[in-house]
Every structure is written in C-alpha cells, then in structure tokens.
C-alpha cells in the first residue's frame, strides 16, 4: 500500500507543549528488553575467551569457573541451590523440559500418573508441549479455567486434583501472564500441590524481573526463567529444578547439567545472564515502583483518550505486573492499531509475539471470557528499564486518533 507523499496522516505534529519524545518509543519489553550495559560488557569480554566449561584443562577450568560463579549468583537471586539451576537455551526450552521431562519421569515411576493440570492461559511453550504430550504420549489434560481477570483460584486447583489425585503427573501454572500481566497466587497454588505431593511447575519468565520470585519460598518444584526479559541476552535461560526431582531429558548428549540438559554450556551468555539477574534483583523494588507509576499514567492517558477502552486483567496492584497494560479497543483490530502505532514509531504488541503474522484472537483473552471481537481488538503495552515519561506521553498523544482511524478501517 502506498501513500503518495509520505504518511499523509503521520505523527501528530503539535503535541500541546509537551517535549518531543527522543526517537522511537519502545513499549514491548515483554517481548524482549534491551540488554543492560553491564551484561553486554560481561558477555563481550567473555566472548573473546577460549575454553569449554566441560574440558579438564586450564582453559576449560577457567570457563567452568565463570559458569559456576554465574550459577551461584542466579541461584542466590532466586532462592535456589546452585545445583538446582539447569541452564537452557531460553524459556521455551526450559518449559519443554519441565513439562515433558517431569511428566515422563513421573509416569515412568508410576504409569497411573498420566494427567496434567494446566491453566488455559499458559504461554505457547507450555501450551503446545502439553498438546504434544496429549497427542503423542497419551497424556490426559485438564485445562483449568481462570477468572475474568485471568486468575486461577487455589480452590479450583484443589477441585481439579480431587477428581483423581493419584492420576496427576504434573501441575503447570504460569507466575505472571505474558499478555495481560495477571499474577497468579503461586505460593498458595504450590502449597495445594505440595499437600498432594504433585510436582508444580511455573513459567516465571515475565515475573522474574518485576516480582520477588523464589524457588524455595514459592514452594514450586520447577521455575522457568529467561535472560532476555530482564536485561540479559537472547538465547539463554534456566529451569530452576528442585533437588531430588527427576526430569527425563529432552536433549541427549554429553550429559551436562546433571544429565538433564546436554549441550556445551554457553559461558558468555550465562555470565551476562547472571550479571543481568543480579542487577535486576538489586533494582527490582525501586524499578517495580517506577514502572507501576508510569504504567498507571499510561492507563490514565489511554482511557482519557479512548473512554470505551477496557483494561484487561487485574487492576493495578499486587495482582498485576507493574510493567504491563493491556487493553481492548472496541471496534478495532489489534493488528491495525499496531500498524498505525508502528507508523508513528511506537512499538507495542497484540499479545505474544509468537502469534504475530496472521492475527489470531488471543487464547488468553478467550479463556478470560472475552468474545472473539474483543480478543482481536487488543493491544499490550509493556514497560521496562528504558521506559520514561516521554514514551507514555507520546502514546497518549496519538492513541485517540489511531483508535479512531482503526475503527474506520473496521474489522
């Protein structure tokens, strides 16, 4: 499609005396966040070093030391023992390892344990792993419903278990939702699982940088974390896997990482991951407060400009990620909104980036009871370390006009 002379209806020029934002506005930190300079420096330095952490010689020992120190730092930050940190290539791999590996291990120990209890709003890395187990491994799945704000109640979980406690292999409930930012009562849910001695996995990818996340204090059996959402590089993550829990490996090979995850350890990425984790945890409380204030202003500006926009998920507070705002705009298509904002150099998302391409109604919103139209007409704004007030103002300046235009384009 073409505009004959540049964008005829481009970015609003006069913006009411507000300072012009500095270049592009990035409100998609839930997709990926920018690397902290400290993490970048650590990774760059490590990339020039030689040595496989599994080698026995001096170069290998040096690399091993980097990996183990990083492991200790990450373990400390998330209330785990160093041996409970299993490095992976990222969140998707850690979710696959948790879901498939724990399911296989449990079923191998007791063939009657063939049932998975999973919330309907999981990330696709969990969702599709579970679908795969159902399709190819004969797993039975109970998809647990959520409230209209996306929460799973401990009573709901207990009810699902009680249908047949001895058949449950694994429970998986994400810590905070990647689309609508709803935070689950993980400690309470894990406590229920513990009563029945059922392994409990939680995808904590979105929570790990913004909420106090701990393996020990949550009572979870396994937690998924990844580096690139908290200021580290893409391509490295970890499954925090409680001691004494067996998981059947998904990747077979050299037997690294307790024999659970084979593959040469990526020392530069792991070091940068640890640096990012340490900084994120150190700054977490202040940063969460700062992001929540910006997020609240974003909600105020968007709802002022578009009065019929509805905030999806929990209201601002402990039930919602501080950096997340997720709206439905009646009469609009999410991808039209995204395109119009992109043309004004504002980056956001219609949901999980994996759904990008052909617009699909979000399975998260559908599970929360939204109809297909509302699910399609949604946008997620996610804030992070680089977000400043000018970014929020830039969005506030154009969102009204953008929504109006998207409405004219209809569905």
């Amino acid at each position: 499609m073409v505009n004959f002379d540049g964008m005829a209806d481009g970015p609003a020029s006069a913006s009411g005396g507000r300072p012009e934002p500095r270049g592009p506005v990035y409100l998609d930190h839930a997709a990926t966040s920018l690397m902290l300079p400290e993490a970048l420096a650590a990774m760059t330095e490590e990339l020039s070093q030689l040595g496989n952490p599994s080698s026995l010689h001096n170069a290998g020992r040096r690399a091993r030391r980097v990996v183990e120190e990083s492991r200790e730092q990450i373990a400390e930050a998330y209330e785990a023992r160093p041996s409970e940190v299993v490095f992976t290539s990222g969140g998707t791999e850690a979710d696959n390892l948790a879901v498939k590996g724990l399911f296989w291990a449990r079923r191998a120990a007791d063939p009657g344990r063939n049932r998975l209890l999973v919330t309907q709003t999981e990330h696709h890395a969990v969702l599709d792993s579970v679908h795969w187990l159902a399709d190819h491994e004969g797993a039975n799945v109970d998809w647990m419903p959520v409230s209209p704000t996306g929460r799973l109640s401990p009573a709901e979980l207990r009810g699902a278990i009680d249908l047949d406690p001895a058949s449950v292999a694994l429970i998986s409930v994400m810590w905070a939702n990647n689309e609508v930012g709803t935070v689950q009562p993980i400690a309470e849910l894990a406590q229920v699982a513990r009563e029945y001695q059922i392994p409990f996995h939680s995808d904590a990818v979105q929570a790990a940088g913004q909420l106090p996340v701990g393996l020990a204090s949550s009572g979870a059996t396994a937690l998924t974390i990844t580096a690139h959402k908290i200021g580290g590089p893409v391509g490295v993550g970890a499954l925090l896997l409680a001691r004494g829990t067996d998981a059947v490996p998904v990747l077979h090979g050299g037997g690294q990482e307790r024999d659970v995850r084979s593959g040469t350890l990526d020392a530069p990425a792991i070091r940068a991951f640890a640096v990012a984790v340490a900084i994120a945890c150190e700054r977490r409380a202040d940063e969460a407060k700062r992001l929540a204030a910006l997020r609240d202003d974003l909600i105020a500006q968007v709802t002022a400009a578009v009065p019929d926009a509805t905030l999806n998920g929990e209201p601002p507070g402990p039930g919602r990620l501080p950096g997340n705002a997720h709206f439905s705009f009646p009469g609009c298509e999410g991808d039209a909104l995204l395109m119009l904002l992109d043309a004004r150099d504002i980056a956001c998302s219609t949901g999980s980036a994996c759904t990008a391409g052909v617009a699909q109604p979000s399975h998260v919103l559908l599970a929360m009871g939204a109809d297909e139209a509302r699910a399609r007409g949604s946008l997620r704004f996610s804030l992070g370390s680089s977000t400043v007030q000018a970014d929020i103002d830039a969005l506030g300046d154009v969102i009204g006009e953008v929504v109006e235009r998207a409405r004219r384009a209809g569905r």
Partner: protein
Amino acid sequence: MSGGVDSAVAAARAAQAGHDVTGVHLALSRNPSSYRTGARGCCTLEDARDARRAADVIGIPFYVWDLAERFHEDVVQDFVDEYARGNTPNPCLRCNEKIKFAAVLDRAVALGFDAVCTGHHARLDPALPAPGPRRLVRSVDGGKDQSYVLAVLTSQQLERAMFPLGDITKDQVRQEAAGRGLAVAAKPDSHDVCFIADGDTRKFLRGQLGSAPGRIVEPDGTVVGDHDGSYGFTVGQRRGLGLSRPAPDGRPRYVLDIEPVSNTVTVGPAEGLDVLEIEAARPVWSGCAPPSGPVECLVQLRAHGEPQPATCEPVTGDSGGDVLRIRLDRPARGVARGQAAVLYEGETVLGSATITGALQVRAVC
C-alpha cells in the same frame, strides 16, 4: 506482496519514487498446520517469508493481513458456484475486483493510505496523471500483459491503483530484482489457480461439488458418453472427454455447451464453437463514458486471448439490467460463459463485462 518477483519489484519501485510504502501479504487460505487453530499459514509458507524478506531488503514495514474469510466467500466459493452453473470463471479477476481493490483497498484507505500498489503487468494511461480519472492500458510486455484481469476495476478503483511494472518487461523485472538484491529474482512464475495446490481443477471441484454423473450428447441428442460432473468441462475443451465411441466422421469433438440443470455436456465438431454474437452482463466502463450506441472496438474473450474487432452495443437485458451485445467481425472459437469480455481501443481498456451467452454461427446437426 505475494512473495513473487513482480510485487517485490513493484514495492521497491514505489518506495524509490518517494512514496511511503507498507508491504502487505494476504493470508488467503486457512492452514491449520500447528496446534493453534485457524490460519497460521504465514509462519510456515515460503511465500510469506519471501515477501517479508523482500520488504526487509527494500526497507519498508511489512504486515500479513488475514483475508481468508473474504477470499473464501468472494473468490473460492464464487469459483465453485460458477462452475456449478456451467460457467468458466476467472478467479484472478474476481480476486482483483473483490479482494485486492476492494477489501484491501477499503481497509488501506481507512488506515490512511492513498492507494494499493501491485505487481500486475499493466499501465495507467500516462496522459492522465494522478490524482484523477485513470485509464488502464496494456503492459509494454504483450506476453505478460494482465490488463484483462484488471479490466473489471471501476474508474474509482483505478484512481486508487498503482502499477509500477507496466512500462517494463518481465525479463527487465527479473533483472531489476537481481540488481536490487531481491532473492526472489529467479523465483518461477506461478501459473495455477492459487487455491488449488496441485493444479488439478477437476479434482478440486469434485471435492467441492461431489460426483454428479450425467450424459455427454451430440447436438442432435445422441448420447456418446457419460461424465462425472458437468463442472469438469469448459466450452472449447477437446482433451479428456472420455468418449466411448469416435465421431462418425472421425474428426475431433469439442465441448460446445454445458447445461447445468439437465447436467448435460454437448460435444461436436470445431465449427460448432464458432461464435459471432455474444451477450455479456454487468458492464463496467473505466476507459470511456458508458456509450449510448454501438462502439467499434477490440474485444478479448479470455486471458491471453487474441483481441478481435467487434461492434459492442449496450442494451437493456431481459431482466432490465444493462447488457452488452457484442458482434464479432469474424467468428471466434471457444467463448465460455463466465469469462470476461474486455473491450479495448488500441491498447487502452474501455470496459469489461461478464459473458453470459454466445450465439453459435450455425446450428450443428
């Protein structure tokens, strides 16, 4: 951007001309290939990737628009229905009319864009600069000219259209693609109907319409064979008739007519295909004002067909609508209902209409 070389070069040319260009790939088929339901074909199909790569190289934004539903209703279903009526539709033409220059154009305009730019091989009359009324003109590459499948567009649609490839040949398009570093430079042309993956139209229609056995007869009513569904035939077709006995005179037989109600296919000698007078419905005039009397012009009766001298006259049809009566100077063969009759003055499209009937030169008995 389809993922082919034409739309990639068209986008590059539009961007280079200084326009603000956004690439759009249309997801037109439902392709449930993963655990997600519905269309996620874009993530697996090579064409979408090629289109995205081309947009990256050109340096323009790129989006996939899911028009599978509209496409199914307006193009695929129309295609099936037309065959069921004994007609021979042109789905590319319908797609231009209903999807690219309607659904896509409407959405684009609402979103703030001025025009839809495509890689069709056709030109807009350079004597009439934009903005304002446009006239469609054949491509300089006669062999690749696509004005026939665009002739259904109204002048309003043409005002919002851009065809940057009309003044170069297909070979030049490929050379230019290579020069611009577009990986699709050597990608083969697509020929088949895009929604029939294996190119077997008859099999596709059988899947859609089911088996409908009927008779194959000669013009005098003599039964010469059976068929599995009259939709598998096109007027003028010679191959694949599966006739049980040869013609008395030993000459090849052709499909002369398809009668969907009685599900009868009539075959006969080639002369039976000769047509001098054609009726066509729903005329669209983009290249001139609707004429009040007979017009002498050239008429093209199928894609890549030879234009023929004719006299065309708008008349009022039996049902009260506008109808075009076309008298050919010389008989033409293989005129199929459902195809477009496109009227040209030289290289310029005057208008088009859908063929609804053809009078054979003489009854063949």
